[in-house]
């Protein structure tokens, strides 16, 4: 009896990785899923924070995919290792701060390490030639195989028939004839295959599953690096770029203002790490002050904070400023008028 082969599937939570894994499971291969958490994954976070997203299901789509497939899922924290990918991408960025090609090389490389450590035979991804402008092109797909070190252990079941044979195909671990020849940006073949497999209610993120493909998020990240004078970040930075209005009057500081109760609740957890303030005389949002503001800067921050509170139209409001050590003081400021916050301050 021949040995049952084992493959690890990169599971993003989207439709393509779901279909790729299912295609290989159908061929009798033992498949387990792997999902890398970079910190920039759209999954869950903002849904958990923002009230406006409350109607959306809070499920983690990678876990949901694994459950549909009946496979184990290993979620790996790569936050620290990923910094080098984002800060120094060999192949550069896409339309925003998305280093898609380097990212895919990194993830396949990590998967290669994983199969070596866990005695698996090959790697599956849901890539489709021509699907994405940077990482899923005919000329870049060999780059991923080569630079990740996976070489012909990397099988792309959805477009395998358009690519050179891989080891699992040559060795007969999988039947190439039962793989697919999808290409281009059309989603019709995927929808048809999903229908064949009986999958419904799958996730279809329009801009992918990464915040770095989002212009507004990327602008905030670039602003953060510019203000700090170096490309550095930690997980708290990554999280806080996802919430609030970010207003930067000068390079020394920026004000992060909660837009709704969900964000305010989330930002409460950072009160010990940042100077923070809110209106004392009227209802208003919590504001975190990032950077090293002067006393004068704090008064500007207080005027901005007051602008977003219920006292925005009164002559003067009281604002409570809390330092990181917990000490408090109250100042009285005139809230900025609707046109007094320059558009250029909005990050």
């Amino acid at each position, binding site marked *: 009896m021949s040995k049952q082969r084992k493959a690890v599937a990169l599971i993003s939570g989207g439709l393509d990785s779901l279909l790729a894994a299912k295609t290989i499971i159908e061929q009798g291969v033992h498949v387990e899923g792997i999902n890398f*958490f970079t910190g920039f994954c759209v999954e869950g976070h903002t849904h958990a924070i923002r009230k406006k997203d409350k109607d959306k299901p*809070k*499920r983690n789509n990678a*876990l*949901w995919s694994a459950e549909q497939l*009946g496979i184990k899922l290993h979620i790996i924290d790569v936050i620290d290792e990923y910094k080098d990918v984002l800060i120094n991408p060999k192949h550069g960025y896409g339309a925003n701060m998305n280093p898609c090609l380097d990212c895919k090389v990194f993830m396949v490389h990590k998967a290669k390490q994983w199969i070596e450590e866990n005695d698996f035979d090959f790697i599956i991804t849901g890539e489709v030639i021509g699907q994405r402008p940077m990482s899923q092109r005919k000329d870049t797909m060999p780059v991923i195989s080569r630079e990740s070190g996976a070489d012909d252990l990397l099988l792309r079941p959805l477009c395998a028939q358009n690519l050179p044979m891989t080891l699992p195909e040559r060795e007969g671990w999988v039947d190439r004839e039962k793989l697919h020849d999808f290409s281009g940006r059309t989603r019709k073949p995927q929808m048809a295959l999903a229908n064949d497999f009986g999958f419904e209610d799958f996730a279809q993120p329009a801009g992918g599953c990464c915040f770095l493909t989002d212009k507004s998020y990327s602008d905030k990240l670039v602003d953060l690096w510019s203000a700090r004078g170096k490309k550095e970040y930690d997980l708290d930075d990554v999280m806080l770029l996802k919430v609030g209005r970010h207003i930067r009057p000068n390079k020394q500081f920026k004000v992060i203002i909660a837009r709704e109760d969900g964000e305010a609740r989330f930002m409460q*957890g950072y009160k010990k790490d940042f100077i923070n303030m809110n209106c004392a005389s009227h209802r208003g949002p919590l504001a975190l002050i990032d950077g090293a503001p002067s006393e004068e800067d704090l008064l500007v921050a207080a005027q901005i904070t007051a602008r977003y509170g219920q006292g925005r139209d009164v002559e003067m409001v009281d604002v409570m400023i809390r330092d990181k050590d917990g000490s408090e003081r109250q100042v009285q400021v005139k809230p900025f008028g609707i046109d007094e916050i320059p558009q250029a301050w909005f990050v």
Partner: protein
Amino acid sequence: MARENLNAKRLLCPMPVIRTQDKVKTMATGDVLEVVCTDPGVMQDIPAWCRINGHKVLETHSEDMEYTLVIEVG
């Protein structure tokens, strides 16, 4: 059977799931882990993770914006 606790407060999903996964790796079958979180998403994600990895959720409850799950390692 050992009983252990995991504080996953202030973490947003999937970090509480990752911390739970890493903690469970160090425990034996039949051991019990109590996880306390502040992201309501864990009430969906940790049970899903348990289902696909063969662990059992014994109990869940929430109080004062904290969400607690008690898991038996499978």
